[in-house]
C-alpha cells in the first residue's frame, strides 16, 4: 500500500478520457489518507468524475489540483478543476437541474454541488472554466 505524503498536494493533467482513471486513483488515495467515511469517499470520487468528464467533454484538456485544507480547525480536501475551454456563457442556467448542452443527463454541475460542502464556479464564454469543491471531514 502506497502511503500518501501529507499535507496532500497534487496536480493531475487531464488530456482525455484516459485521465479519468488517474484522477480516480489519486482522489481515492487522498480521501483514504484523510480518513473519510465510506459515503463521503464515494461522494468525493463521484464529484471528481462528473467534473473531469465535463472537462473532457467541453474543453478536451485541463487539470485537477488536489489540496488538503485546514480552516478553523476543520480538515478537508479541496479539488480545483481548471480548463481553457469555451467556458459557460450562462452559469446560472448551467446550475439548474436538467439543463445540459452535452450528452450527459444534465445532472453534472447541480448534482455535483449537492455532493460536496463548498462549490464555486468561475467561468465566462471564451474564458475557460474553474470549478472548486471542498469536502470537509465530518
Amino acid at each position, binding site marked *: *500500500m*502506497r502511503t500518501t505524503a501529507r499535507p496532500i498536494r497534487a496536480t493531475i493533467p487531464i488530456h482525455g*478520457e*484516459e485521465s*479519468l*482513471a488517474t484522477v*480516480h*486513483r489519486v482522489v*481515492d488515495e487522498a480521501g483514504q489518507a484523510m480518513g473519510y467515511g*465510506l*459515503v463521503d*469517499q*464515494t*461522494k468525493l*470520487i*463521484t464529484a471528481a*468524475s*462528473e467534473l473531469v*468528464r465535463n472537462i473532457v467533454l467541453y474543453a478536451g484538456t485541463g487539470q485537477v489540483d488536489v489540496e488538503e485544507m485546514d480552516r478553523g480547525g476543520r480538515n478537508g480536501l479541496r479539488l480545483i478543476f481548471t480548463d481553457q475551454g469555451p467556458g459557460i456563457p450562462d452559469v446560472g442556467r448551467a446550475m439548474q*437541474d436538467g439543463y445540459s448542452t452535452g*450528452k*450527459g*443527463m*444534465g*445532472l*453534472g454541475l*447541480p*448534482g*455535483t454541488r*449537492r*455532493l460536496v460542502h463548498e462549490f464555486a464556479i468561475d467561468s465566462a464564454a471564451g474564458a475557460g472554466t474553474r470549478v472548486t469543491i471542498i469536502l470537509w471531514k465530518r
Partner: protein
Amino acid sequence: MPTATPRQAHITPLDGILVVTLPPLLGDSDAEHLAQQVGERLVTEQAHAVLIDMTQMRMIDSHMGRVLNVMATMIRLLGAETMVAGLRPEVAMTMVELGMDLGGIPAALSVRHGLADLRARAGRSA
C-alpha cells in the same frame, strides 16, 4: 495501487440469464462497448434477462447512469428484461443526492436475490 484494478466487465450466461459483472470503475470506452457486447450475447445465448451485478462498483456518475439506462432500453427492445443487483449503500446514497434515478430498471439486493426473482418471473410467464 497494490493490485491492478480490473476495468472490463464480464458477461456470464447462466440458465437463460446473462450476468454482467461490472468492475469497480468502468472506463468510458469500455462502457460504450458494453451495450453492444450485451446485445450480441443476448441474441447468441437466447437469454431472457440481463442481471447487472453492481457489487464491485465504487461509484456511478451521471455518465454511467446514462449508459445503464440506454442499455436497459436496448435490452427491452430485444425482448428481454434488465435487473440491477448488489448496489452498495454508499453508491445508492450518492446517486440519490446526485439526482440520478435508474428509472424503470428493477433492482435486487444481491445477485442471488436477483437470479431468484428473474427465474420466478420466467417461470410465471412460461
